């Protein structure tokens, strides 16, 4: 089954709105795309369309949170993370207010809109903020759990979702999401593939391909980039002896960067990062862009062989 994570966001937000009158939602003229529109329709008095004004949206969300509300603020990932970065830093992260910045259109699969709309740097700049929790769910099922956890969690959070249809890899009952705890999806001895977002499904595909060559991969959904699951990363390195990361984001500062930081200080093993190579994207169909920018199972297979060759 295919479903976009943003659709799961809209659906979950609507359910939460019914259960918790304290939840308010803000958007910056993109509610149809971010899927906050269904909440807006059901709870117009608790929905604030701030117009094309992301900085003002974040500040307003902070004021609502300072007054006891649970504020969800949504726009595209580039605008939510970039345009309003100082606002998030100043009145969300520094204040530790209960604001959830939930963005859609993360990464290159934003597609046809091109580079201006493809956030490849947002995880890096959000992760650098103290007090910030950064989560990138792998599919629609996990997204539902993430959004529920966000509503319960008291403090700032950045959740990055996608526009594109994505394979659903979890079953409702078996998705055990906890903030900060990576999920081992498949056991394997030769290498650990640590992925987030849509690349988790791609990593599973790569693991299937490698299994045919008698290479067994541990596949980890490291949905929470911050706080990072240090223990699990170290365990992966110690037990498999090699690590490959995969993310729909620049290889600079995102999941790959975060994992490398843990490894270099705790358990040095051969490592490779699959991700966008320090470049802007371009217009195109999401599936074509994934190929052109090296976000495929084939690319992960190559990276795995590279780290295995470097293993002593």
């Amino acid at each position, binding site marked *: 089954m295919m479903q976009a994570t943003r659709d799961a966001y809209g659906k979950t937000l609507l359910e939460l709105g019914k259960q918790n009158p304290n939840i308010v939602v803000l958007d910056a003229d993109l509610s149809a795309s971010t899927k906050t529109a269904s909440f807006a329709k059901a709870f117009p*008095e608790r929905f604030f369309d701030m117009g094309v004004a992301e900085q003002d949206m974040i500040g307003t969300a902070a*004021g609502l949170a300072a*007054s006891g509300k649970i504020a969800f603020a949504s726009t595209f990932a580039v605008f939510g993370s970039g345009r309003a970065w100082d606002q998030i830093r100043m009145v969300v992260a*520094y*204040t*530790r207010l209960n604001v959830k910045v939930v963005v859609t259109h993360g990464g290159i699969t934003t597609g046809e809109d091109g580079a201006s709309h493809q956030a490849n740097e947002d995880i890096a700049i959000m992760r650098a903020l103290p007090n910030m929790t950064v989560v990138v769910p792998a599919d629609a099922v996990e997204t539902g759990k993430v959004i529920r956890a966000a509503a319960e969690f008291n403090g700032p959070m950045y959740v990055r979702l996608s526009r594109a249809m994505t394979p659903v890899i979890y079953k409702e009952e078996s998705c055990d999401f906890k903030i900060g705890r990576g999920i081992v999806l498949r056991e394997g001895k030769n290498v650990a593939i640590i992925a987030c977002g849509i690349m988790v499904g791609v990593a599973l595909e790569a693991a299937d391909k490698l299994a045919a060559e008698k290479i067994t991969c541990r596949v980890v959904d490291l949905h929470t980039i911050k706080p990072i699951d240090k223990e699990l990363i170290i365990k992966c390195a110690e037990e498999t002896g090699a690590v490959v990361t995969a993310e729909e984001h620049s290889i600079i500062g995102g999941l790959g960067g975060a994992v490398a930081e843990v490894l270099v200080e705790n358990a040095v093993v051969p490592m490779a990062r699959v991700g966008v190579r320090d470049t802007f994207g371009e217009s195109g169909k999401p599936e074509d862009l994934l190929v052109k920018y090296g976000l495929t199972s084939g690319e992960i297979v190559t990276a795995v062989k590279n780290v295995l060759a470097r293993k002593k």
Partner: protein
Amino acid sequence: MNLVEIAGKLRQHIIMMTCAAASGHPGGSLSAADIITALYFHQMKHDPKNPTWPERDRFVMSKGHAAPVLYAALSESGYFPVNYLKTLRQIGSSLQGHIDMQALPGIEMSTGSLGQGLSAANGMALAAKLDKKDYRIYCLLGDGECQEGQVWEAAMTSSHRKLDNLTAIIDNNKHQIDGKVEDIKNIEPLADKWSSFGWEVFACDGHDIKEIIKTFEQAVKVKGKPTVIIANTIKGKGVSFMETRPLDYHGKAPTPEEEKRAMAELCQIKDFEL
């Protein structure tokens, strides 16, 4: 103490604390001292014994570099002991160089990056409306700060949402860091700008506390739209050498020698008595 005396006291604190810290922003703190006095010692409902009292009025200091005047007012109202003021900008102190709501009870929003306070004040005003509470929100901005785009995003939000429980005050001291506001990037006609953004605009002498209070009384009566008071002020007000050279005392503390002169003026002690 009457309000004029309190404002004088706040000015003395501003001089002493910035001198002790050997840094900080005296000019824009002094210009706001009468406005802050009118707010904290007359206009606003608040309880220093219970800083999180849900029914309290909220004050957002958007020009966060004017932290000293707010700290002075909070301590004089009883939020914390006055002698704590001398810890301004010291390591470990709750009196951060720019305002930190996590560090100090009585602070409603962290500021220091200009242009952001009014958005947060809007959020508070929206929450009050949602919760059907009648507390009010006050937000102080600098005139230079009005060059920030976000101020005008927020100004549109306030009027679009008919936030008549919100009053913004502009500390219109005509100076920013690099020079006079009119020379750096003119913001005039300021009243017309706010008015065209859907606000009810008032003006007053920002150093005449009676007039400030009268203007607040008019502002709270306005229904269906937000109100802004353009308070005409003098940067460095109360200290002669700062008033004449406001650009030198934006972000520079008085030296101990200057502190003596400033305190003499503020305490109205004649030179020969020193």
